[in-house]
């Protein structure tokens, strides 16, 4: 048995090679099929790097199937059959069966089956002896029949003389052809109108943009952070962090636009709060300065009333305290302020020489000095105090303002970028579908013209809008008044439209009932704008509610239709 198995060794190796090639063929077909399905599906469901994944499917499927097929154990019977196919004429299979039978018979297990042929009568009627010599009881060793030994020896000699290279791996032509056909079909998926690649490209572009935006927001956050208060720093950091998170999580440009718009609103709100705080601070500073000036002028009662109102934060009390001032008190206050102004002018001159104050503060101080010098009334004093306080707070507020401006600028850039991308995408889709619908009206964005007849003066005159589509007269130089009075809309019944027959019914032998209805307008005819603008405005409101537009864009569109309606 061992000798036989050893002789079958080269045959088994060749069979593994054959299996490897065969498995590779099947794997190639399977991989190509998987790739085809993947590419077909991802034509409609966007998937990044889908061609690389499809290639990996083919290569991986081929290798996996080849390896798994080659690593499957080759049974001795299979090897024997393969060897017999090389001209051994069933010598190997017979020898193997005889050896297995002998092994079973000599095994100690009593359940071993006796595989010898049962005697059967011959054509002459006498029983024929078994093909394999009669076997004794299982488990009892017995000498093998002569014919068995001869057969095994013959089989082993033939196997050893066999050139195993005769067992050639069959080149899987059909499978390769099938795989090639599937590859062609894979390539043909490029023709599918799914637009998966475009969506993936748009998503990648969006990711790139959002990454750039996040970086810009981060840089804007770091810009001149030293001049901010802790609260402002915290708010700005929170704002930029939210913006980065929203940008990263955005699935499309509309999401990114919403995120940027939200950040812009928050920033605007922050700036408003800062401005309010600044105004309140300026007023309080002016009041304090006025209170000190009144005290130095000897107007103790009025100064106390004002100080009390300041302490309580009651604006009406402050106003009353100032309005109750007599003419004499005002004169004293003027003189006092004149002295303050002089001192302030001198201080300003010194400071200017030292270059310590900013230009804004110097200008504010100069104005305050001028105002104080000419102040003869309560308002002048208030104005001077206000300007002085404003100048004093300018230095501390300038850092926050610069940072907010930088962030604002960054956000504007993001919006412009996103708007451009969205406009390009819309234009691309419009060109694909042939509908001619487009959007994009922000300055700096590439705007798409609407379909034929959707002209308007504002769109035409919009700065930065890029003309596309079939809008007529978008060049201001070609503007004609008549084109704005009428609009092309074949669905609307115009005077040029005629009644058409809508139904015909026979009522008898000579009687026919004909129903007519309003026909469509002439294709050459235009409809006055006034007839359709109301309906257009209603459609705009519905569309704007469901569309992914920023608040600014919605306002822009609303304003456009509002103006149209007013006209």
């Amino acid at each position, binding site marked *: 048995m061992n000798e036989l198995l050893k002789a079958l060794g080269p045959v088994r190796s060749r069979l593994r090679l054959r299996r490897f090639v065969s498995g590779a063929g099947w794997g190639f077909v399977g991989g190509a099929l998987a790739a085809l399905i993947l590419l077909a599906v991802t034509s409609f469901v966007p998937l990044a790097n889908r061609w690389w994944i499809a290639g990996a499917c083919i290569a991986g499927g081929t290798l996996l199937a080849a390896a798994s097929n080659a690593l499957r154990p080759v049974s001795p019977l299979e090897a024997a059959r393969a060897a017999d196919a090389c001209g051994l004429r*069933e010598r190997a299979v017979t020898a193997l069966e005889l050896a297995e039978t002998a092994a079973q018979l000599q095994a100690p297990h009593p359940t071993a089956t006796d595989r010898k*042929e049962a005697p059967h009568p011959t054509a002459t009627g006498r029983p024929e002896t078994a093909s394999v010599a009669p076997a004794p009881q299982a488990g009892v060793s017995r000498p093998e029949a002569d014919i068995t030994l001869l057969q095994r020896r*013959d089989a082993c000699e033939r196997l050893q003389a066999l050139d195993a290279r005769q067992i050639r791996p069959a080149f899987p032509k059909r499978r390769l052809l099938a795989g090639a056909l599937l590859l062609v079909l894979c390539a043909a998926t490029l023709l599918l109108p799914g637009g998966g690649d475009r969506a993936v490209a748009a998503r990648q572009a969006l990711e790139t943009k959002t990454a750039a935006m996040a970086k810009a927001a981060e840089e804007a956050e770091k810009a001149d952070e030293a001049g901010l208060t802790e609260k402002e720093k915290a708010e700005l950091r929170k704002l930029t962090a939210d913006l980065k998170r929203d940008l990263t999580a955005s699935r499309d440009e509309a999401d990114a636009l919403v995120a940027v718009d939200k950040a812009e609103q928050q920033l605007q709100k922050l700036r408003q709060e800062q401005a309010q705080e600044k105004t309140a601070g300026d007023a309080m500073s002016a009041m304090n300065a006025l209170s000190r000036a009144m005290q130095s002028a000897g107007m103790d009662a009025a100064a106390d009333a004002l100080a009390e109102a300041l302490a309580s934060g009651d604006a009406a009390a402050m106003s009353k305290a100032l309005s109750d001032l007599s003419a004499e008190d005002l004169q004293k206050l003027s003189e006092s302020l004149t002295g303050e102004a002089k001192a302030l002018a001198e201080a300003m001159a010194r400071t200017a020489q030292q270059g310590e104050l900013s230009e804004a503060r110097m200008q504010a101080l100069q104005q305050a000095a001028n105002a104080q010098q000419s102040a003869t009334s309560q308002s002048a004093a208030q104005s001077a105090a206000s300007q002085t306080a404003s100048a004093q707070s300018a230095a501390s507020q300038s850092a926050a303002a610069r940072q907010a401006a930088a962030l604002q600028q960054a956000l504007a850039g993001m919006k412009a970028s996103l708007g451009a991308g969205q406009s390009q995408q819309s234009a691309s889709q419009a060109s694909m579908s042939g509908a001619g619908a487009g959007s994009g009206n922000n300055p700096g964005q590439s705007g798409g013209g609407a379909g034929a007849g959707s002209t308007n003066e504002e769109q035409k005159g919009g700065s930065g809008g890029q003309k596309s589509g079939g809008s007529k007269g978008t060049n201001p130089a070609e503007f004609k008044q008549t084109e704005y009075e009428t609009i092309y809309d074949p669905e609307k019944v115009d005077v040029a439209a005629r009644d058409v027959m809508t139904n015909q019914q026979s009522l008898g032998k000579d009687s026919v009932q004909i129903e007519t209805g309003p026909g469509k307008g002439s294709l050459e005819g235009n409809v006055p704008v006034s007839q359709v603008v109301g309906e257009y405005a209603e459609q705009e409101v519905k569309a704007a509610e469901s569309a992914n537009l920023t608040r600014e864009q919605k306002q822009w569109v609303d304003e456009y239709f509002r103006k149209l309606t007013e006209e």
Partner: protein
Amino acid sequence: MDNITHFAEQYEKIRTEIAKEMIGQEDVVEHLLLAVVAGGNVLLEGVPGLGKTHLVRVLSKVLDLPFSRIQFTPDLMPADITGTNILVRTEEGSSFRFQKGPLFASIVLADEINRATPKTQAALLEAMQEHSVTVAGETMRLPEPYFVLATQNPVEQEGTYPLPEAQLDRFLFKVLVPFPTLQELGGIMDLTLGAQAQAQAPVEPALKEPALKEPALKRTALGADDLLEMRNAAKQVPVADSVRESALKLVLATHPETPDAPEIARKYLRFGASPRAAQAILSTARVRALEQGRFNVAYDDIRFVAPACLRHRLALNFAAVTEGREMESIVAQLVNDYVK
């Protein structure tokens, strides 16, 4: 072990001796020898003059076995072939004695077997199957080895009695004797007429060839004991399960009534082969394996012997007759489909 190792040598010796007297017909000789060694009966079918009778006579001489020839005619009676009890008068008185018929030989040539009546044909059944003859209630064994080699003419059917299926089944092989090729025909002429006579004499029918020149065999190849040893050796040849299974499936495939019967069997066959066909295939395939120098049966052996084993055991149906299908093509297709 000697009988196994020397099998091919002895077989070749027989073939060589036969070839000295038979020109061409190698395939017929091969099948005939396979059947003889396997211990079966053979039905030789061919037009007159192809040397069927001559072949049997040569075989009997080569094997040095008792030979008898029975020319079957419509008036031939069973007792004419089996023998009969005759009244014998001796000095001691009269008594019946069994006079052995021509069946009592090792090689019986039943010439034109289909010319005898079914009654006489049936008298052969016991001899063919049981190797015994029963006359007047007494059964007598026939000598071993024993085979019946019958001939029949497929063309001339008038006044003939087609062999019943039961009797056909007793024949291990049905061998078709083809007409010799041009070269073979020339060789026959050389052998029977002589090279010089061939130039002068007109071409005579082969029927007369034995009368013109009877070639004399000088020596025999082997005897009855050698033949029985060869038969025993062949019976030991192992058959792989897959090979045996293919033979059995082939026999089963000839049965149109079975659910797994192939389309061709269902369409053109009236009935299929009996289990004797499977026995015949395997036993003769074993002989061929040893003759080829192998100690195991191969698919090739099955393919070689299967048509001769099956062609007389199957019957075509009306559809096959009307469509002109021949048994040979149907059997060949079955063999190709089932013996891989």
